[in-house]
């Protein structure tokens, strides 16, 4: 066991990820040299992962409020009102570095962590999503990472019992050295049944609940903030193993305990477990905390104070309980077979005191641990805007061939191989499972309400222009939710970037946050929770900037809900929100990248005013019951959008195209704020007529571009492609890649 009196050398300080000036700040704050355990506590509290020291200044600029927001950033998860006394509680969090080292356990514990954030607040988890980015398909590690991560996400979520209703998977060589695993979870609670981490009352018992503490992930939070290098093998033993069974018991025990009225404050142990959770509970409540480590349930011998304070063993909670309810609480812990112990008490001296084997191993000012964490305004350079493509720069290809090739490509192919490994229907409320625009889950106990969930970002757009890319991520998420008929309520973000100490990377982060903020404000889509993951770099190569946006929307009546499948034959198809030429923008399109190997040009700009207007119009059509089949356009443009609607239904369509206009941008342009809407109306009838006039009056271009029916998809002059061939192309890439 390493002694707490270990000499604090500059090497030791550096190996804790603390810079010399940060260490000086510690010396100034406490007026003496820290003990070894104290150094560990500071390193955990002040690393990027817990302190947000590089991003805080910019996160503050995000919109986080609105009449619907009950709890914004600052707690374990955000809380949003959905009426009738119900609230939805949600957040997204990354587990990138651990998943690269041990994909199954890394992804599994990522899911476990985010579920815990949600039920710590008193909500029963009802939906999960996962946003995944991997290296190039032909990179030797990619397959191993895909199979491990997907199995891990499923292994944990399925056993816990939450339906996984959405997510993303992308491949790009820029993720070769750093995969991304962003996990989202949402839960339902009553507005008067929300639990917070703020401790109240002096001299009250601090109770430890859940699994025993081991040496798992000691140094893990520090690892998450360190750039990878060749010595990654040495970091292996810090892997944490997830136990979804214990988590499920913890969920049920916590909800029972909360219902019993025994809980004053509760905080899950995530990164830097006991340290972060105890400090947060005390600091928020303006109280001190005293911990007696001899009481902590441990599963390994001879654990030092340092190890116990930094352990990231999973499935653990800390709470402050009402002393008079202790017996009742204990009965619940015993029923669910969970370890528990009174490990400390609240005090009135604002100190964070840690005792181990009769010795005080730490005694620190509790508020300063969080409040005095360094905050940086890191130098950043404005990203260069890419030059637009020349007007006549339209590389040609056969439309049908290009469509089939795109549908069979790594990024555009069906994700069925992935989501069939996830339980998508447990709880019996899944109205839309993965494969559509957004996952939709019915609100239990309510006759007609449902919630829609989507997670989106287009990293190649963000690389080309982080500001527009940030806007686009928000807009696409909002659009996907709108396409089901739901009203987008609020969002969560997971900002994945490279090393912020490099001004270009910091520039990406700053611009992306500005874009996200602008879009969230314009669309009334406040950010209520989130997570930042920096230092996603290996040997100096950073990932594509990847600010994932997770959004939640409310459907008043799920009987009036749209899906992406065509709902019948002979229905007129409108392209709502299109420019006059239907499609124009090829810069950063998958068509240019995957058919012509080019990644130049600016990404498509998002006109936020138009986005809002078009979205409101489309939602109106769905609410009126005339649009049962709606799909937003994104990667691959009109051609891919139509193909996806056809494949989901087995019904073809004929879309004649425009005369005298190059069909390539028409069918493959990725112009924003567009939806395909197939109407349950007679195209000769007066209602259809009236609807077109209505769009015109609203200033929305919504041309009737074609009609559903038959078994082929006919795009302009291109050869007709049987829907069965589309399906075959779309479904075959992933299994062939993974099993080939």
């Amino acid at each position, binding site marked *: 066991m390493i002694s707490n009196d270990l000499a604090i050398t500059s090497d030791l300080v550096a190996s804790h990820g603390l810079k010399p000036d940060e260490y000086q700040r510690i010396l100034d704050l406490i007026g003496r040299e820290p003990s070894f355990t104290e150094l560990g506590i500071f390193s955990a509290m002040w690393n990027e992962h817990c302190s947000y020291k590089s991003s805080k200044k910019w996160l503050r600029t995000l919109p986080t409020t609105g009449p619907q927001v009950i709890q914004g950033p600052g707690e374990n998860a955000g809380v949003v009102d959905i009426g009738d006394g119900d609230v939805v509680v949600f957040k997204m969090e990354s587990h990138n570095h651990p998943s690269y080292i041990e994909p199954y356990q890394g992804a599994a514990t990522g899911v476990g962590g985010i579920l815990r954030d949600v039920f710590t607040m008193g909500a029963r988890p009802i939906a999960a999503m996962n946003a995944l980015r991997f290296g190039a398909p032909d990179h030797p590690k990619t397959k191993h990472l895909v199979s491990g991560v997907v*199995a891990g996400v499923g292994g944990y979520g399925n*056993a*816990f019992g939450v339906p996984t209703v959405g997510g993303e998977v992308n491949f790009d060589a820029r993720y070769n050295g750093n995969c991304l695993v962003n996990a989202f979870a949402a839960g339902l609670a009553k507005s008067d049944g929300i639990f917070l981490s703020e401790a109240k009352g002096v001299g009250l018992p601090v109770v430890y609940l859940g699994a025993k503490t081991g040496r798992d992930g000691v140094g893990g939070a520090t690892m998450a903030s360190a750039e990878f290098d060749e010595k990654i093998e040495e970091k292996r033993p810090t892997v944490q193993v997830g136990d979804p*069974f214990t988590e*499920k018991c913890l969920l049920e025990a916590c909800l029972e305990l909360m219902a019993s009225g025994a809980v004053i404050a509760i905080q899950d142990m995530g990164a830097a477990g006991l340290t972060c959770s105890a400090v947060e509970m005390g600091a928020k409540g303006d109280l001190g905390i005293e911990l007696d480590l001899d009481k902590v349930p441990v599963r390994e011998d001879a654990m030092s104070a340092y190890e116990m304070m930094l352990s990231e063993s999973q499935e653990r909670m800390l709470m402050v309980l009402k002393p008079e309810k202790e017996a009742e609480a204990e009965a619940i812990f015993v029923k669910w077979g969970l370890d528990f112990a009174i490990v400390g008490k609240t005090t009135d001296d604002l100190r964070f005191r840690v005792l181990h084997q009769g010795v005080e191993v730490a005694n620190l000012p509790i508020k300063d641990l969080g409040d005095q964490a360094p905050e940086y305004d890191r130098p950043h350079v404005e990203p260069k805007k890419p030059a637009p493509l020349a007007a006549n720069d339209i590389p040609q290809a056969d439309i049908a061939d290009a469509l089939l090739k795109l549908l069979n490509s790594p990024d555009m192919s069906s994700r069925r191989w992935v989501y069939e490994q996830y339980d998508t229907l447990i709880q019996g409320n899944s109205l839309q499972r993965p494969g559509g625009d957004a996952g939709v889950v019915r609100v239990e106990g309510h006759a007609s309400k449902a919630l829609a969930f989507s997670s989106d970002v287009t990293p190649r757009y963000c690389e080309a222009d982080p500001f527009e890319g940030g806007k686009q991520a928000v807009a696409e998420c909002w659009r996907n939710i709108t396409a089901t008929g739901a009203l987008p309520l609020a969002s969560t973000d997971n900002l994945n970037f490279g090393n912020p100490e490099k001004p270009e990377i910091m520039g990406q982060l700053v611009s992306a946050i500005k874009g996200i903020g602008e879009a969230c404000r314009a669309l009334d889509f406040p950010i209520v929770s989130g997570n930042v993951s920096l230092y996603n770099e290996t040997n100096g190569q950073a990932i594509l900037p990847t600010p994932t946006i997770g959004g939640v929307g409310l459907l008043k009546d799920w009987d009036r809900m749209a899906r992406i499948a065509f709902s019948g034959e002979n229905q007129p198809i409108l392209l709502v929100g299109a420019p006059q030429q239907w499609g124009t923008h090829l810069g950063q399109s998958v068509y240019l990248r995957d058919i012509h190997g080019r990644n130049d040009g600016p990404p498509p700009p998002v006109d936020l005013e138009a986005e809002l207007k078009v979205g409101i119009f489309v939602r109106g059509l769905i609410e009126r019951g005339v649009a049962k089949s709606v799909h937003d356009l994104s990667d691959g443009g009109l051609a891919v959008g139509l193909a996806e609607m056809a494949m989901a239904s087995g019904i073809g369509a004929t879309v004649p195209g425009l005369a005298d206009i190059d069909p390539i941008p028409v069918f493959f342009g990725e112009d924003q704020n567009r939806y395909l809407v197939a109407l349950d109306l007679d195209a000769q009838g007066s209602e259809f007529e009236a609807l077109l006039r209505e769009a015109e009056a609203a200033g929305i271009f919504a041309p009737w571009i074609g009609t559903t029916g038959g078994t082929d998809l006919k795009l302009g002059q291109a050869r007709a492609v049987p829907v069965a061939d589309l399906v075959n192309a779309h479904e075959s890439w992933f299994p062939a890649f993974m099993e080939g």
Partner: protein
Amino acid sequence: MKSAVVLVPGLNRDRDMIAALTKVSGQAPATLWQTETTLPEGLDLIVIPGGFSFGDYLRCGAIAARMPVMRAVADAAKRGVTVLGVCNGFQILVEAGMLPGALMRNTSLKFVCREVKLQVTNANTAFTRQYQPNQIIRCPVAHHDGNYFAEPEELERLEGEGRVVFRYAENTNPNGSINDIAGIMNASGNVLGLMPHPENLIESAHGGDDGRGIFESVLAKAA
């Protein structure tokens, strides 16, 4: 109908099952915690729902099968009470020795959640009366270990006695199960185990109600 749902830590389709039983019978089932040794009087149906009892650790259903409540369930079955085990519930019944054979890892070695087609191989049982003989129904599956195995003699007996009640049809066997077996019953015909999840296909919100017939059959018998 008076029904009860067994609760063991780690089971997670208990809420789905309780909701389905309530919707179909109009009456909420009782719940039986793992430590209970006596059952309520007059039960018509005991259901062991799906999930991951004890995390599926050791073998699926192995630990749950040895909890006290299962002895009471076995006694009730001997007295003729109808018992239904779905997914993990099927695995528990097998581990408890109330049904023969074993449920092994899917041949894909992957968890699989999708809709399959089921043939009602025997429509003359307490669980399937509401279906036509050999009717093909839709039903979702969600499991990692549904690959049914039995020794050849046992298998012959099951087939010969009409105790294979459901079979995966139209090439939709999701797990490599022998003879496409999806559900079997005991010799007395009052204990059924099946891998798919009829409780997740009982109303329009689920996209269909093909699973309802199982609950309605049991209900009709009780009435």
